[in-house]
C-alpha cells in the first residue's frame, strides 16, 4: 500500500511519462549509479588492457548500459540472470562487486572465479548471476533449465537470460524459447540487439529485421523497444518479470541498442562507418536519462555529479583491491575440476 508521502511524490510526477513516473528517486539513483559503474568499469578495463594488466580479450558494452540495468532493476536479489560474453554490465546490474570483477579480470585469486574464468566467465552465483558465457547462445537452454528448476521448486523466482542479435540465429535460441513456452517457464529472454554479431549486421544475418519478430513462432509475447531508454526498459522488463513470476510464462524483450566499442580488442571496425558510431554515441543512455531527470527537476546537476563521482571512486577502489590481490597459487592448478 502506498504511503501518503509516496502518493504525493507520484502526483508531483504526473507530468512525466508513466515509465519515468513509476520510478522513485532512490530507484533512479541506484539505476544511475549502476550505469555509471558499468561505464567506468569498462573504461578502466580498457585502460588496464592498454597498460598490459589484462590478458586475453574483452567485450565491452559501452553504450548498452540501459538495457542491462533496466532489465535487472525490477529483479529481486534471489532472482537469477544468465549473461553473455559481453557481460560486465549484466553482472554489475545484478549487484556484483566491481572489486571482485576486476580481480577476476586481472586473474587474481580474489576474483569471482578465483582468476580461472576471466572476463568471459564472470559469475556471481551467490548474487544470482549464473555466469557470463563464452558460447554465443550458450545461456539460452540453461535458462530454460533454471526456469524449470524454479517451477519445480515453486520458489517464486524468475530468470532473465541475455543474448545478442547474433545469438538469435543459433539453434539453441529456437530450442530454448520453444521449451520455455510449452512449459510456461518463468524466464524473460532479453535480446540486446546492438545491430551486429561481430561484423555481421543483423540485416545480413537474419531473415527478419527484429529479433522479437520471432516471438510468435513460440507463441510468446515479443516486444521491441528502445534499449537506450532506461525507464522504458525497466517498465517493460517489470511487466515481463511480473508475468513470469505469476505463472504467465516467458516473454521476449528486444532492446535496440549499440556497442560503441569494437566487438573485441581485435576489431578494426571495417564493417561500419564512423558516422554510424557517432550517431549512437550521441544516444548515450546515461546522458539521456540524466537530461530527462534534469528536465523534470527530479535531480539537479550537483546530485547527478555526486552519483557519478561516487561511482568513479568505487571503481578506483575496486582496481586498487584487484591490483593488491594475490595471484592463484600454482600448486592449486587443478582445484575445482571436480566437486567432492
Amino acid at each position, binding site marked *: 500500500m502506498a504511503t501518503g508521502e509516496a502518493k504525493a511524490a507520484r502526483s508531483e510526477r504526473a507530468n512525466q511519462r508513466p515509465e519515468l513516473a513509476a520510478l522513485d528517486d532512490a530507484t533512479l539513483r541506484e539505476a544511475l549509479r549502476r550505469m555509471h559503474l558499468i561505464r567506468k568499469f569498462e573504461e578502466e578495463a580498457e585502460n588496464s588492457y592498454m597498460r598490459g594488466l589484462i590478458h586475453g580479450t574483452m567485450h565491452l558494452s559501452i553504450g548498452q548500459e540501459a538495457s542491462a540495468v533496466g532489465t535487472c532493476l525490477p529483479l529481486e536479489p534471489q532472482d*537469477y540472470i544468465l549473461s553473455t560474453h559481453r557481460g560486465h554490465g549484466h553482472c554489475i546490474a545484478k549487484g556484483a562487486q566491481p572489486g571482485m570483477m576486476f580481480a577476476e579480470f586481472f586473474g587474481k585469486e580474489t*576474483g*569471482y*572465479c*578465483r*582468476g*580461472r*574464468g576471466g572476463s568471459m*566467465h564472470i*559469475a556471481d*552465483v*551467490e548474487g544470482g548471476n*549464473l*555466469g557470463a*558465457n*563464452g*558460447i554465443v547462445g*550458450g545461456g*539460452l*537452454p*540453461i*535458462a*530454460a*533449465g*533454471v*526456469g*524449470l*528448476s*524454479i517451477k*519445480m*521448486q515453486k520458489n517464486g523466482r524468475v*530468470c532473465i537470460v541475455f543474448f545478442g542479435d547474433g545469438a538469435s540465429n543459433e*539453434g*539453441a535460441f529456437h*530450442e*530454448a524459447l*520453444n*521449451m520455455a513456452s*510449452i512449459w510456461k517457464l518463468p524466464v524473460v529472454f532479453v535480446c540486446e540487439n546492438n545491430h551486429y554479431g561481430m561484423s555481421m549486421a543483423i540485416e545480413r544475418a537474419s531473415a527478419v529485421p527484429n529479433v522479437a519478430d520471432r516471438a510468435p513462432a513460440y507463441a510468446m509475447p515479443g516486444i521491441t523497444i528502445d534499449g537506450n531508454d532506461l525507464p522504458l526498459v525497466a517498465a517493460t522488463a517489470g511487466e515481463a518479470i511480473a508475468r513470469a513470476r505469476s505463472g504467465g510464462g516467458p516473454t521476449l524483450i528486444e532492446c535496440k541498442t549499440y556497442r560503441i566499442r569494437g566487438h573485441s580488442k581485435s576489431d578494426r571496425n571495417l564493417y561500419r562507418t564512423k558516422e554510424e558510431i557517432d550517431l549512437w554515441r550521441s544516444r548515450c543512455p546515461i546522458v539521456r536519462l540524466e537530461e530527462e531527470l534534469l528536465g523534470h527537476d527530479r535531480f539537479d546537476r550537483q546530485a547527478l555529479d555526486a552519483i557519478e563521482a561516487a561511482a568513479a571512486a568505487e571503481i578506483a577502489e575496486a582496481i586498487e583491491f584487484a591490483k593488491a590481490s594475490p595471484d592463484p597459487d600454482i600448486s592449486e592448478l587443478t*582445484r*575445482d*575440476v*571436480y*566437486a*567432492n
Partner: protein
Amino acid sequence: MRELSYAEAIREALGQAMEADERVFLFGEDVGVYGGAFGVSGDLVHRFGTERVIDTPISELGIAGVAVGAAITGMRPVLEIQFSDFVTLAMEQIVNQAAKIRFMFGGKATVPMVVRLPGGSGTGAAAQHSQSLEAWFAHVPGLKVIQPATPHDAKGMLLAALDDPNPVLIFEHKLLYKTKGPVPAEAYRVPIGKAAIRREGTDLTIVGTSLMSLKAEAAAARLAEEGISAEVIDLRTIRPIDFDTVAASVRKTGRLLVVYEGVKTMGIGAEISAMIAESDVFDFLDAPILRLGGADMPLPYNPQLEKAAVPQEDDIVAAARRLKREE
C-alpha cells in the same frame, strides 16, 4: 537373490532415487507414456506424474542445457538421450558448460546432473544409431563416465551417479537392457571409479568395457578349457580409469588385452594401453599390449557385416591365444 533385467534395474534405481529425493527428476524424448525408446522408464510416469517424468521436444542441445540449468540451481536432473548418437547435438552443453562450469566459476557452482546414453551396435540400426562414442567423453575433464555391464552395477552405479556432485554420463549398451542378473532390493551404491575383477587368472589380463566385459568373461571360460588362465576385469568407469586394479593385474599376468566396442583407433583401449606403457608396469610386460576394438568404419546395416565390425567372443579367444603365445 531376486533377478532383474538391466532395464528394470535402472528403472528401480530411478524410482528409489525419486522416492528418496524430490530434487531428482527424469526427462528426455518419449520417457513418459511411451516408457522410453528402450522401455527403461516404463511406468515411472504413472508413479511420479508428468511433472517429474517429463517428455521433451526433440531438442537435444536444448535439453542438455535444461539439465545444466536445473543442476546448478538445486535439482538433480536425469536426462535420457534417446540414442547416444544424438549426443553429437548436445556436445556444446555437455562439454563447454556442464563439464567446465565448476572450474570456470572457481568452484562456486556444482553441476550434479546425470545423462543416460543408450549406445552400441547389434540391433541393425546402422551407422547413425549404433555408435559407441564414450571415448570422447573420457577426454573431457570435469565429467565422469561410466559403463555398467550388469543389472547389479546398472542400479548401483546410477544411484552413485545421483549422489555425485559432478556431471556423470552413463553409457548403456542397448544389447544389455534385456540381460538379467541378481539385484538387491535396497538402494545400494556401486562406487564410480572402481573396476571389478570378474574372474581371476594368471596368464593374461583382459580388460573389457560394457558388453565386451561380458564377452570377455565368456571367452575366458573357453580359454580355461584350453588351459589358458585369463583374468577378466570389467572397467566399469572410463573416467576416471581405475589404473590400480588394471596395473595390479598386469603386474601379475604380464600380458594385457583390452576389448571395447568403440572404434579401435582412439578408443578407450588406447588410454589403458598408454597408461600401462608409461607406468612402472611396463617392466612387467612380457608381450605387446593388444587392443580389440571396433573396426575403423561406420557401423554397417547388413547383419553379417555388423557383427564383423565389432569384437565377438571368438575374436577375444583368438587374440588371447595369440597374446599367450607371444614372448
